């Protein structure tokens, strides 16, 4: 599966993921505390951040912001009617800046680096004696099985079309769920046959 990491190599790709996440948390929090004028400055800074990574990268980033347009429209109408244009602009810019910053970190951090961060975050659980292997294995399984379940769904939709003139709808979700549960049982058996997911814990049965 393709992650949202940008294929355009930028300087930000080389910054450690942990540092970027920490900076993102602080910056997002700050966006909610800043005065309207400072929000505008911050938004400009985010735009500069994107442009510093190149035009192709910035255009990609802009596409990821498209989901905001209904909200921006809503704010424009709302504050246009109530006549609080400045407050409306601040809210709109904050929405844009917060989403753009979060996307920036996602676009410049490789999946492996993000997984490394998550393993690090789970470390306290290991200290407590809990195995985090199950979590790591589960992540790998979702990555592997999602395309397979999509394929199952498409096959079910196709066989529906072969028999009916109507469009396949929610009815194919039931067999999709049933097939997923079957697969889960098969994989569980295979894992058990290979020693299970907790080989470090002594099994009694």
């Amino acid at each position, binding site marked *: 599966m393709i992650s949202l990491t940008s294929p355009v190599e930028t300087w930000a790709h080389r910054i450690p993921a942990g540092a970027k996440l920490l900076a993102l948390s602080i910056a997002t929090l700050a966006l909610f505390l800043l005065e309207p004028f400072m929000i505008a400055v911050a938004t400009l800074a985010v735009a500069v951040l994107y442009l510093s990574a190149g035009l192709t990268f910035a255009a990609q980033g802009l596409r990821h912001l498209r*989901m905001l347009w209904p*909200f921006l429209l809503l704010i424009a109408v709302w504050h246009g009617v109530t006549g609080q244009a400045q407050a409306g602009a601040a809210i709109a810019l904050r929405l844009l800046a917060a989403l753009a910053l979060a996307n920036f*970190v996602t676009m410049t951090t490789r999946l492996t680096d*993000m997984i490394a961060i998550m393993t690090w975050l789970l470390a306290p659980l290991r200290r407590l004696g809990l195995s985090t292997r199950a979590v790591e294995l589960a992540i790998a399984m979702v990555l592997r099985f999602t395309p397979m379940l999509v394929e199952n769904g498409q096959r079910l939709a196709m066989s529906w079309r072969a028999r009916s003139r109507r469009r396949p709808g929610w009815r194919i979700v039931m067999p999709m769920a049933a097939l997923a549960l079957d697969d889960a049982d098969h994989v569980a058996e295979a894992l058990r046959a290979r020693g299970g997911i907790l080989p470090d814990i002594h099994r009694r049965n």
Partner: protein
Amino acid sequence: MERNMTRIALFAALIAALGLIPSLTLAFGVPITAQSMGVMLAGAILGARRGALAVLLFMALVALGLPLLAGGRGGLGAFVAPTSGFFLGWPVAAFVIGLIVERWRTGPLAVTVAMASIIGGIVVMYGFGIVGMSIALNKTLAECAALVTAFLPGDLIKAVLTGLITQALARSRPASLLSRP
């Protein structure tokens, strides 16, 4: 242990798959995303604890940067958008739905699951969604509550369909309904 883990993982994958299948038309030709129905199904079929874990696992993968949300969205941006409140409410919704289906054993299953999905997937999830939206848009809770009513018809349809799907699964394969062992 293995079985619980693989079921949680496969359901997380199912939630992802339901968002990725293009134009899975649910009812009346209205193209609404089936993804939040996956959350309802996770609670109803897997039960409270496993259902919530499946949703959390899915959310972790979105946070890692995978485009698993409907429309190919994902990444950390999913947690700071105006609609992120709904997203953050997903595991709680799945848990509440699972809990209701586990405990409320009288009456037809389809009705119980549909009611559970309305309580968990609409009342609880909208609670989170409205708070999130009010923070992001700087509007009062009442104003945001009025805005989210636009999603209500679609989610009511999904709740009813979750009931019908769960009932069909339980009828054809009773062992699959893990919320009611």
